[in-house]
């Protein structure tokens, strides 16, 4: 997964969009910056990196209910540092934000939580792995780190409890986990677990719904992932029926251009990153959602893999009306490949 939303730092600000989405384009004085060639260490890097400005634990799941219908689940924990310091107590300059989304074919539920670091209300420990904010929790089972997880979140009128079992290894995005975000060289550390088998239960206003499906976890941290002239992105994580996975994104700039990137993770274990320009994303249909025009159907082309597909929102109203709003929801895939996945769109005014 790529540049993902994070809004925390400015979590109390109303006008944070002056420079890039949610202030991601600001300079990174005092914060560490990702270096090419740095080797990621596990399980330590599953935990928090307080000397980087932003970080997230981002999970999306495409699920099928006992009723045969499609459901989507998003669980995200963001960390944002006001200063590159960890520590405990109220003065710890770390802010945490949780987003939960539950999408049914006809409804979309959103939950949001905010917390200060240092007092135990939210945080991440690497071993045993636990990421939490309030009663939301993503935790490794025993010493399993990220390969076996339980996941829980609650909203005002929904909840979900899921068990996740990884079916393959972690995928390091970009150059061994060093993911470039612009022609100017902005980058982040980025790795994923693209293939979880999921079982669990959704709690909806009308009752409980047992579900099974697939999930995708992204881990990313950086101090300045957006260039100053980039104002939003479109990102997908796709599970093909063939067992292959594709992560792709485009960062739109203010001149109408885009920087694209992606990684193909084959069912056979082959991982191939793509540089700018190889993947193209073309909006097909737009819909009026939450007072703005959003492309809810896309054409994706990746000639190197013979990929030419269309993705369409399963529920076009998957709008995350959070402090920093964006669209995030499950999509169906048709064309040269079939399957399901998740689409995220930010920065649409």
């Amino acid at each position, binding site marked *: 997964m790529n540049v993902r939303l994070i809004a925390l*730092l*400015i*979590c*109390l*600000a*109303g006008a*944070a969009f002056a420079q890039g989405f949610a*202030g991601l384009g600001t300079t990174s004085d005092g914060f560490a910056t990702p270096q090419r060639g740095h080797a990621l260490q596990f399980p330590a890097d599953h935990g928090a990196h307080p000397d980087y400005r932003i970080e997230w634990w981002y999970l999306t799941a495409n699920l099928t209910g006992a009723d045969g219908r499609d459901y989507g689940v998003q669980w995200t924990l963001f960390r944002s540092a*006001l*200063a590159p310091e960890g520590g405990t*107590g*109220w*003065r710890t*300059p770390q*802010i945490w934000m949780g987003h939960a989304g539950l999408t049914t074919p006809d409804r979309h539920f959103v*939950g949001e939580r*905010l*917390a*200060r670091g240092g*007092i*135990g*209300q939210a945080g991440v420990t690497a071993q045993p792995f636990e990421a*939490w904010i*309030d*009663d939301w929790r993503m935790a490794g089972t025993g010493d399993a780190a990220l390969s076996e997880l339980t996941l829980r979140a*609650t*909203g*005002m*009128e929904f*909840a979900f409890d899921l068990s996740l079992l990884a079916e393959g290894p972690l995928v390091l995005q970009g150059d061994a986990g060093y993911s470039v975000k612009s022609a100017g060289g902005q980058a982040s550390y980025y790795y994923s677990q693209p293939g979880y088998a999921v079982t669990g239960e959704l*709690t909806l206003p009308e009752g409980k719904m047992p579900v099974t499906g697939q999930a995708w976890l992204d881990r990313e941290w950086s101090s300045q992932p957006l260039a100053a002239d980039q104002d939003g992105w479109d990102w997908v994580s796709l599970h093909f029926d063939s067992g292959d996975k594709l992560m792709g994104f485009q960062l739109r700039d203010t001149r109408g251009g885009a920087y694209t990137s992606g990684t193909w993770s084959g069912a056979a274990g082959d991982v191939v990153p793509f540089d700018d320009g190889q993947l193209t994303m073309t909006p097909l249909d737009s819909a009026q959602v939450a007072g703005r025009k959003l492309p809810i159907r896309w054409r994706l082309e990746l000639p190197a893999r013979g990929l030419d597909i269309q993705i369409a929102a399963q529920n076009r109203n998957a709008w995350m009306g959070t402090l920093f709003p964006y669209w995030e929801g499950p999509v169906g895939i048709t064309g040269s490949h079939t399957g399901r996945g998740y689409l995220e769109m930010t920065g649409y005014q």
Partner: protein
Amino acid sequence: MWRVALSALLSHWRRAPLQLINLLLGLALATALWSGVQAINAEARASYDRAAALLGQNRFAQLVPRDGQRVDQSVFVDLRRAGWLVSPVLEGRIRHAGDWIRVLGIDPVSAPAGLAPASTASPEAFAGFFTPPGLAFAAPETVAALSDATGLPRVEPAEGLLPGVLIMDIGIAQELLGASDMISRLVLWPRQPEFRTPLEAVAPQLVEKAPQGQADVARLTDSFHLNLTAFGFLAFAVGLFIVHGTIGLAFEQRRVMFRTLRALGLPLRGLIVLLAVEVLLLALVAGVVGVALGYVIAAALLPDVAATLGGLYGAEVSGSLSLRPVWWGGGLAMSVLGAAVAAGQSLWRLARLPLLAPAQPRAWARASGTGMAVQTGLAALLGLVALGLAQWGGGLIAGFAMLGALLLGAALSLPGVLSALLGMAERGARGVLAGWFWADTRQQVPGLSLALMALLLALAANVGVSTMVGSFRLTFTGWLDQRLASELYVTARNGPEAARLRAFLEPRSDAVLPIWNVTGALMGAPGQVYGVADHPTYRDHWPLLQAAPDVWDRVATGNAALINEQLARREGLAPGDSVTLPGGTALSIAGIYSDYGNPQGQAMIAVDRLAALYPDVPRLRFAVRLPPAQVPGLIRALTTDFGLPRDNLTDQATIKAFSLGVFEQTFAVTAALNVLTMAVAGLAMLTSLLTLAGMRVPQLAPVWALGLTRARLARLELARAVMLAALTMVLAIPVGLLLAWALLAVVNVAAFGWRLPMHLFPLDWLWLGGLSLMAAGLAAAWPAFRLARMAPADLLKVFANER
């Protein structure tokens, strides 16, 4: 026709400018006092509303510790992790330059929208907000007051905050208050997730408290404001006497004109409409002037009121006044309403006036014998109502209703009583002149009765209030002497310092007595529990009203409590009953003590029991006993050797002075209103005498013709006014004492929860009597002077003109 009629009617005021001034002045003064009091009340209430809205207490429910103590912040994390949407608040006080500043620590990140000041909502401000030294927000006046404070975060002004309140990050506040990892309560988000663990399973020590539309303080101060309102109303009523008199007079004097206008074809309805419009216009003009005056009065009194409310109830009231429609609109309405009431009778009479009725101006409002009988009957009825209310009424409203009935009844009975007294004097008079003097005085009573009634009201209120205040002061100072037995009171800044302080003090004094207290719900209302050491300081001095045998021994065992009079009265408790402390422990009551100046319930238990029940009780304050001569030395040792700031030390004399200061302020406003009421009454007297003077010439001329000189007549007029005032004063004293009794035994008990013994102050009466005689003398001096200088020709005209 209409214009001519109107100009004819208005021409009266041109010819009698004094009447116009009287009318306007009376109405304006009445309105001024009323709207001034209302302005003060409105300002105070606005402050309470802001206090209630502080941190959204009026909108958000809260989770508060059952025992009223602080709890560890892990409760907050536990609740959040159990699915509860809550945000922690730490509350405490710091001392700066002798004043207490209320510190509120909040966590803007977990807080529901609308809780934190908007000023924290920028990234820069937010980072600065919780990164030491932090950033605090306060009302502009508090920012100014704290400009020289050290050890505080940077303080920035924010709109809408109460004075004396400092809002900062909870982490900064914990450090400032020496309360690491502690919180006072939790604010509940208005919407909670459906799936969350029950409160009892997560935090059984907390209890949910509904949003409070009104701060506790607004309830506490209700009595104070009712008090002010009652006085404002009294002043208004006194002012209305003037207006009623003047309007009545103006109608009477224009009877000829009315008849002429009617005869010229002006319909009766038209005449009434014109007169009503005239009254309305006058009322509006007077109302505007009155509201402006009211603003001046309120602005002058508000600082005292604010100080009182702050000292007595801990209510922060802004010292600056703003123009609020609720009181200036109310003031105008009262002016119009008052004028309408005053003019109603005259208009009614006019409506029933036969077209060609004899157009003789009668001496104004001269009541017939039956009229006076009706009035006396009404007075008796009101007396019965007052008696009934005293016997069976309950609460503050009944108390004030009783006062109203008492005062009005006394005022209405005045003409009858005066008439009877003067009749007796007349029968006992020897000599023609004396006979004439008494008879003539009696004949004047109806004309002067309104002014005299106003005087009676003012005097009675004065006697009553000064007796109440004097009794209170006497009791209060005696009580202070008993209660503040220790020579020195010290407060440590934090727990470790307190322990060192105690160790420092023990070898240097006779005794070091802890003054530790916790606040919490005491029988369902906010209150405090104090710990008391077993020491002769308490055994010998503490002012007990009721006590069981061996009261102090029983308290020392830890199984019995003392409660204050307020709590005992509110809950109907007596020694032997039991009192439930915050947290649920019930102790039997061993005694009841007087606790003047404290609006809340209070209990005292053995200090060891307090520490056992509330392990987190702040152990910061101590009372120190030592020979008075050693106090300055110990203060020096504490400030220089021990390093305690001077603000944290208070000697007995300072506390007493402070308490008495609060006390004086409490009644400063009452006293000011009293003086103003007296002034209004004096004015009423003057206007009545002035208007009567003109009409009395026909009655005086024959006496002059019989050989009495003008100077002698003038002296007699003066003596008459003084004598009437003296009689009124004599009658006012018992009424005032009844009033004082009602204030002490009914209103104070209902308003404050304490009953005071009544003391009499005859010297004050003498002084007041002298004052009223002087006022009457001054009021009569001008008419008398004019009589003495009246041209004989004017007196002779009486015989020439057939009136």
